[in-house]
């Protein structure tokens, strides 16, 4: 039996389901390790060497080095795990979220102040194209 995935037609959204979780297991566990101060220090001192300690794919490592959160999510990263990476960088959740939308943090913050991204045209891929 195949798993039903009715959410594939939601625009701009990656649902962290079991397929994504399997793909991103080591990427997410690496991110989780940054909850410990000593690991944050080691990662900041030598990012590549620290990443090489994890059974991640080369592409996953590149996505982390590039701090490209959409790329990381396409490789199985989950935002609550990836939050440990941008927290290590001293970035707020809002700054990180803005980086995923292609807006500057100021533009994004202003959009939120004005009531957020409208659902109109943003619920189905076919509407947003």
């Amino acid at each position, binding site marked *: 039996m195949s798993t039903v995935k009715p959410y594939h037609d939601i625009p701009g959204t990656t649902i962290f389901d079991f397929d994504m979780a399997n793909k991103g297991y080591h990427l997410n566990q690496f991110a989780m390790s940054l909850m410990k101060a000593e690991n944050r220090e080691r990662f900041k001192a030598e990012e590549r060497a620290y990443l090489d300690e994890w059974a991640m794919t080369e592409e996953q490592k590149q996505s982390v080095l590039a701090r490209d959160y959409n790329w990381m999510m396409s490789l199985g990263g989950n935002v609550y795990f990836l939050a440990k990476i941008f927290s290590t960088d001293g970035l707020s959740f809002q700054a990180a979220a803005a980086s995923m939308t292609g807006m500057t943090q100021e533009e994004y913050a202003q959009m939120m102040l004005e009531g*957020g991204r409208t659902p109109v045209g943003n619920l189905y891929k076919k509407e947003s194209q």
Partner: protein
Amino acid sequence: MAKITAGVATSHVPAIGVAIDLGKTEQPYWKPVFAGYEYVKEWIKEQKPDVIFLVYNDHATAFDLSMIPTFAIGCAPEFKPADEGWGARPVPVVKGHPVLAAHITQSLIQDNFDLTIVNEMDVDHGLTVPLSLVFGQVEEWPCLIIPFAVNVVIYPPPSGQRCYDLGKALRKAIESFPEDLNVQVWGTGGMSHQLQGPRAGLINKEFDNEFLDRLIAEPAELAKEPHIRYVREAGSEGVELVMWLIMRGALEDDIEVKQRFYHVPASNTAVGHLVLENSSHSAGV
């Protein structure tokens, strides 16, 4: 006997915790958010619950990908505030109620809800931000708290129906506990928000207000809404709202709405808050 008197629902945005901890609650950005909680702060002083059964979700803090329980009940005497990557929040240790938690666990499992029992767990902003919003900055939390963690990180979370039914079984469990206790059930998370991808920042006021209306007036119908409606219309993280249905299921059908509040934004998120009393409690029965 123990009695459920009331329910509280609130968003648990981490930035709200930061605003409280750094003394920013009077700033123009935050003032309207905290204004919505002035009622509950006074109300809770009169209510003086003995125990809060607090439904929340862990945000990859206590549970990494090595183990993901769908429903996890905290049975320990205490739970420490977690270091989520920038140091633990300066809030009191959460004191549990192991005897009541064990009673609830036994009752729920016998009612076919197969809980995961957790005896060691740090609690993150999902649990501590609601406590701070209601009790403010205190040396000790003024009551005991049973943490109840629901998986909403990996899809699928439990359905709205499952959560609502669990709430009903929870009422039976709590109200069969022999000690006289005033118990509240809190549901946290939501409202609409999406923290990831090009659609980040989605806010759906219409969905949120319909959810509030229906949670109050027709929760059994609301419980039938499938996940896809939440993730499509309220954002990938808006699905946290299913947790509010546990709180609502634990209350009587007849409730009094003591407070209803909605505000956009807090960081990336729409903030919603309800204070609901069981009608029998409001009437002094």
